[in-house]
């Protein structure tokens, strides 16, 4: 998924508007009542969170962003999910079988599971939920993942009443047949798009489902006041009795990262990112502030280079830019909350080791390459970027590094929507600042999705085309996970690094600070924030309270 960053200008204007609203006398939070905790029990308590924006949607078919996914992960369940090592494990499906030709998938659902309204979770719900994502009327960005199911196209164009390849054999058996072998189909079933909804109910509510979502997850939606707060409460009908520990989760919206940190310091929220400015002093003694949680991501931040726009159509020029930028400096600017990138696939990708050398900082080599390409006198170009403080900071750093080898780069800051539109247009954005976050743990999610020449309209914003690379990636598409498949990706990545359709910058590392009483919070490289295993320090036992 394309990663969007904090939008500074909007945030500042919003802050001004907010001040106005405060001055006008805004509504106080209505108090929420929660059950009292049993003294000494791990169970109970409420986790308090804050975020700059509201959650876009709670309808799993309609979201493609980590904010929405965080909450959907707690309201809904998919048939399969990832464990901590990013391996596929059962969730609603008890077990499954995959045919040798990778075209037939059979899922056996756990019997006796109910949605939060008490109705049973059936294979028909699972089939219907995927059909709903494929249905063009739903306008789901996830539809592309399920087009490979037999009959999906006929259903989408209205010539068939149902997707033929999606069959609920009985209440707990779902059979899926694909047109082509797909080694990644289980991963696609772990995406939140494939959440199992009570399908009759969901179809009846249509666009209103986001406001009154019903699922089988550990939590239910208790209250959602847009722009103010989102409140989840424990699902009393959740099938596991040992989870969740928390009675509820409250997230306050409209709190930027700076403010969230101040609220964290004054113990108004339980979890916060650490602002860049504060990070150096916090990291020297994290225990003084709370519990530091750290985790790698499957994210690559890069500067895309448009391979169709001269002089960037010359590979030597693109290589020169890669040599010119000092990635170690950039990592330092990020408080070392990142590792320098050598290629496009993140180093933490399970089962894959990139064997690429990357581009060390070497301005002399950069100048020599520019000379060779006939650009010895330098040239003028433009970096398109979102208007966040971080993007501007990195932009200025890159601007300085490129000036060092004679390349004059202007920085063009635009709004996110404008940016997304511009990078899709051919020959519009020579350099653009972007990040890609893996949707599933497979190298193809970077190499194929971002760089195959058939994806100019989708995510190949570099307009990169190399038939040799395409061939390798295409061969891997229908292959089962194997050493040979991994080999194909390593070879493909070598070609990409050599062709340099982007400046490979860094892979971020996530840092979150939690209050000391919060336990069980961990960062997952693929899944959004998970609060299912989080628990709070128990209330003092009776002995302690008797003394007071």
């Amino acid at each position, binding site marked *: 998924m394309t990663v969007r960053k904090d939008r500074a200008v909007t945030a500042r*204007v919003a802050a001004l508007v907010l001040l106005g609203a405060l001055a006008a006398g805004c509504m106080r939070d209505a108090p929420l009542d929660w059950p009292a905790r049993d003294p000494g029990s791990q169970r109970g308590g409420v986790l308090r969170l804050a975020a700059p924006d509201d959650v876009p949607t709670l309808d799993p078919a309609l979201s493609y962003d980590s904010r929405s996914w965080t909450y959907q992960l707690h309201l809904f369940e998919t048939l399969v999910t990832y464990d901590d090592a990013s391996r596929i494990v059962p969730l609603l499906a008890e077990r499954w079988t995959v045919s040798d030709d990778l075209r037939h998938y059979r899922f056996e659902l756990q019997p006796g599971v109910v949605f939060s309204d008490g109705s049973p979770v059936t294979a028909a719900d699972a089939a219907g939920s995927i059909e709903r994502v494929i249905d063009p009327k739903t306008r789901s960005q996830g539809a592309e993942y399920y087009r490979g199911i037999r009959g999906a196209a006929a259903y989408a164009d209205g010539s068939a009443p149902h997707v033929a390849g999606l069959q609920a054999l009985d209440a707990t058996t779902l059979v899926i047949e694909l047109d082509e072998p797909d080694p990644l189909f289980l991963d696609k079933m772990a995406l939140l798009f494939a959440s199992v909804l009570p399908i009759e109910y969901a179809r009846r509510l249509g666009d209103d489902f986001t406001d009154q979502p019903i699922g089988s997850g550990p939590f239910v939606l208790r209250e959602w006041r847009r722009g103010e707060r989102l409140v989840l409460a424990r699902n009393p009908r959740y099938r596991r009795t040992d989870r969740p520990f928390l009675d509820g989760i409250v997230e306050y919206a409209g709190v930027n990262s700076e403010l969230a940190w101040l609220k964290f310091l004054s113990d108004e929220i339980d979890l916060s990112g650490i602002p*860049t*400015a504060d990070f150096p002093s916090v990291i020297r003694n994290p225990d003084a502030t709370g519990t530091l949680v750290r985790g790698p991501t499957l994210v690559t931040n890069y500067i895309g280079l448009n391979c169709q726009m001269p002089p960037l159509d010359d590979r030597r020029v693109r290589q020169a830019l890669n040599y010119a930028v000092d990635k170690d*400096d950039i990592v*330092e600017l990020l408080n070392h909350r990142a590792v320098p990138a050598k290629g496009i696939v993140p180093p933490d990708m399970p089962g894959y080791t990139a064997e690429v050398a990357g581009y060390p900082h070497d301005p002399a080599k950069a100048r020599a390459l520019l000379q060779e390409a006939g650009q010895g006198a330098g040239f003028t170009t433009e970096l398109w970027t979102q208007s966040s403080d971080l993007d501007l*900071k990195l*932009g*200025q750093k890159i601007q*300085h590094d490129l000036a060092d080898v004679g390349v004059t780069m202007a*920085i063009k800051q635009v709004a996110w929507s404008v940016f997304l539109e511009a990078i899709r247009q051919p020959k519009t954005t020579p350099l653009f600042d972007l990040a890609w976050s893996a949707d599933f743990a497979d190298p193809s999610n970077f190499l194929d999705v971002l760089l195959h020449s058939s994806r100019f309209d989708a995510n190949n914003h570099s307009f990169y085309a190399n038939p040799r690379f395409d061939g390798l990636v295409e061969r891997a598409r229908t292959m089962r996970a194997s050493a040979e498949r991994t080999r194909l990706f390593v070879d493909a990545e070598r070609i990409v690094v050599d062709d340099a359709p982007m400046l490979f910058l860094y892979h971020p590392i996530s840092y979150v600070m939690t209050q000391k009483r919060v336990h069980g919070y961990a960062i997952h490289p693929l899944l959004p924030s998970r609060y299912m295993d989080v628990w709070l320090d128990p209330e003092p036992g009776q002995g302690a309270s008797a003394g007071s």
Partner: protein
Amino acid sequence: MTARRRGLLRFGLAMGAGLVLLAVVGPALAPFDPTAPVAPQLAEPSPPGAPFWLGTDDLGRDVLSRLLHGARISLMVGLVAMLVTMVIGTALGLAAGYFGGVVDVILMRFTDVMLAFPGLLLAVALVAVLRPSVWTIFVVIGLVSWTGVARVVRGETLSLRERDFVLAARAMGAGHGRILLRHVLPNVAPTLVVIAALSTSGTILLDAGLSFLGIGVPPPTPTWGRMIQEASTYYRVAPWLMAFPGLAVLYAVLAFNLIAYGLTDEAKGTP
């Protein structure tokens, strides 16, 4: 003119002269390249002290050097944008006041419409449409701040055009152009000087505001407004990053406001 006002005028002029001097020779005095990371570390601003007398920012750049280079940009934006403002405002004000009638109605209603727009929002919209550069900023600031000038000049012109010396000139067969340039304009001039001084401080502030919103003169050019903006996430851990450019803006605005204040009597005293 009272002695106090004269004193303030002198003080303002001295401050202004200091600013001009800084803008001319400042960049040569800057100890470091204002765009280069010179601090030993990035991401952790150094506090003021040798060899970085005003500290360094998160990109490892020397604050003093950036401030000195920024002086030239800020003053240049202030003065050029002021000139644009004055030229547009004076031309429209003179035309409206002198010709009156339909011309006056059209020009003044247009001025009212422009006045109804919040200046900063209009500037933001214009910058978004035009390609960001120093020149864009000159033009944009000029385009959003001429209205006040036009109103004052029109008022002055309305009374001047009925004066005897104007009537005399007209009786002697002088054309509109000659009357406007030789007879009306020189008499509006004292007022213009006061407005110009005030407008300079206004444009310096507007430029800082635009830079603060991230749409001012684009990087790598150091500007005071952008320095304040970039420091805004660091105000708790490195307050000097915001304080020094903030004080610089305060100094420049104060200088031109004092000049304007001191000149007010001078303008009134002229017959």
